[in-house]
């Protein structure tokens, strides 16, 4: 085929002036050609198209640049410490001992605990808005309020957690007989649990609303109760979508920095239980990045950033893939 789709790449010769001289061309074309406007238009059109392509390339470069920067800056640590850095149990920059295990563990425990706490709530919101009461002012209010949870800055969650939640947790710890510090993994998980509710809830709601009503009607027609329809039709139909929403929440929790930094206690030792103070990857970077005075120290922190980047990217991509598959079905 000799003519392709694109009509760009117009050269000056293509715009042969005979176009203007052509018999019967409307007055307008003649008048406009005199002002050379079409030529300018076409040049702008090409510049614009090229700009758009550059923007598209820019996004790819940006992400590759981020990855490259992280890798290059973690090289000193990767070279000096090797892969055993990741399961090294001691982090003591003064003695030049670097082990990431306390942070990996702290991140995993705090995120999964948060996820565990938040799932019943976010799924309840999703079912309430998606199935029970999709319309009306009260559900609408609930929907907007849950969205607002995501809008509150994390530093405010952290501050509130420090001032209000930590004393409550300290009391609680006193009662159950663990060391009453207040700050620690448990407090940060509670804060995180609140913060990540909206992500799973809003995705879950839209997934549940996509369940074909014919399926539900078929079950109702067999005499199923509302709960039975939800359990045996709605939830199985949307389980991959709900899972994707939970993954997105997890991605949020893993990367969350400020709120966690403010209430987790910032102790770089392996947490003994869920109430002990600890550190996550993000919080240790936030705390120590500007203090890192040695090349390997700084590089070790960046390597944590690299790990965090890779883990969140993988989790988000899996979530996105599941959503894409779900919505195209």
């Amino acid at each position, binding site marked *: 085929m000799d003519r392709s789709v694109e009509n760009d790449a117009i050269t000056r010769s293509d715009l042969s002036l005979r176009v203007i001289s052509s018999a019967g061309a409307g007055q307008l074309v003649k008048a406009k050609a005199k002002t050379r406007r079409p030529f300018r238009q076409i040049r702008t059109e090409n510049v614009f198209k090229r700009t758009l392509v550059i923007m598209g390339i820019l996004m790819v470069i940006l992400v590759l640049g981020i990855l490259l920067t992280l890798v290059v800056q973690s090289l000193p640590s990767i070279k000096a410490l090797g892969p055993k850095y990741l399961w090294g149990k001691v982090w003591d920059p003064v003695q030049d001992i670097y082990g990431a295990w306390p942070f990996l563990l702290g991140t995993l425990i705090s995120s999964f605990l948060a996820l565990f706490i938040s799932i019943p709530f976010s799924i309840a919101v999703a079912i309430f808005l998606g199935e029970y009461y999709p319309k009306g002012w009260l559900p609408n209010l609930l929907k907007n309020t849950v969205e607002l949870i995501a809008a509150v800055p994390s530093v405010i969650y952290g*501050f509130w957690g420090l001032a209000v939640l930590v004393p409550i947790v300290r009391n609680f710890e006193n009662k159950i007989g663990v060391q009453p510090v207040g700050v620690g993994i448990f407090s940060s998980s509670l804060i995180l649990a609140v913060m990540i509710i909206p992500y799973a809830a809003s995705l879950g709601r839209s997934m549940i609303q996509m369940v074909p009503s014919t399926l539900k009607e078929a079950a109702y027609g067999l005499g199923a109760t509302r709960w039975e329809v939800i359990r045996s039709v709605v939830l199985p139909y949307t389980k991959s979508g709900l899972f994707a929403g939970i993954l997105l929440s997890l991605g949020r929790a893993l990367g969350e920095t400020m709120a966690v930094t403010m209430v987790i206690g910032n102790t770089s030792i392996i947490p003994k239980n869920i109430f002990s103070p600890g550190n996550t990857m993000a919080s240790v970077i936030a705390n120590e990045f500007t203090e890192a005075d040695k090349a390997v120290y700084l590089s070790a922190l960046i390597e944590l950033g690299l790990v965090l980047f890779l883990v969140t990217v993988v989790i988000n991509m899996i979530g996105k893939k599941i959503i894409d598959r779900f919505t195209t079905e």
Partner: protein
Amino acid sequence: MNIGSVNYRIGKSIGFQLATILFAFACVVPLLAILFYIVKAGITKINWHFLVNVPKPVGEIGGGIANALVGSVIIILVASVIAVPIGIMTGIFLSENRKSKLAYWSRLSVDILQGVPSIVIGIIAYFWLVKPLRGFSALSGSVALAIMMLPIVVRSTEETLKLLPDSLKEAAYALGMPFHRVIFKVIVPCGISGILSGVMLSIARITGETAPLLFTAFGNPYLTTNITKPMHSLPLLIFNYATSPYNDWHDLAWGASLILLMWVLLLNIFTKLITRKWKVQL
């Protein structure tokens, strides 16, 4: 059929429904608690003096958050100037090229960008700007925040433009309009409410971001408008003062929290209104 078992099933169903309602509305409780507490703790601290003065050293009474307010506005403005045009143009690119290879990679990159933890963006801005320029600067903070804005602006632009009917574009092309005019005179004006709401949401989101500013804008106890120098911002101030041991500073941080919270919530509400008001009826 056994009537008892039917009753049991109905009861179970109602029980589950009640539990769902209970759990769903329980989500609102922490948010309300936070709002209530922040308003209670912050409202008494806010007055004119608070808004137009810079913080005083520990031990002196009074002082305000003018440096952080001005800093936040400047950092956000610069970030928007960088991110909004690039974001909208990229969104246009993606909606106009749905199938191309480059669009696929580009879209994937935007998806990845959306999930990058904010602290990592801070590290990146540190190595791209702070180190080469040999010093913390508001500009580096703005670039970090701009990177965070980008995916939101891109996706909302793309999603909005994708929903516009092709007939609009055809009408414009058939009138002999060049591509850029079709986009800027027809497509963008018709999708303006969606694009704007994406821009405003992205601003609302970065207004509260602290992590990317920790090692970029860094903070500054004095009022400055020089974007090549360290600058304070509201969330940074809240973080620094909230984690300090001084009660005076905590008070300052409560006032700042209330202002930040109102700023973010108003932006969210405003976005909703604009989306409704400026929507072009197709």
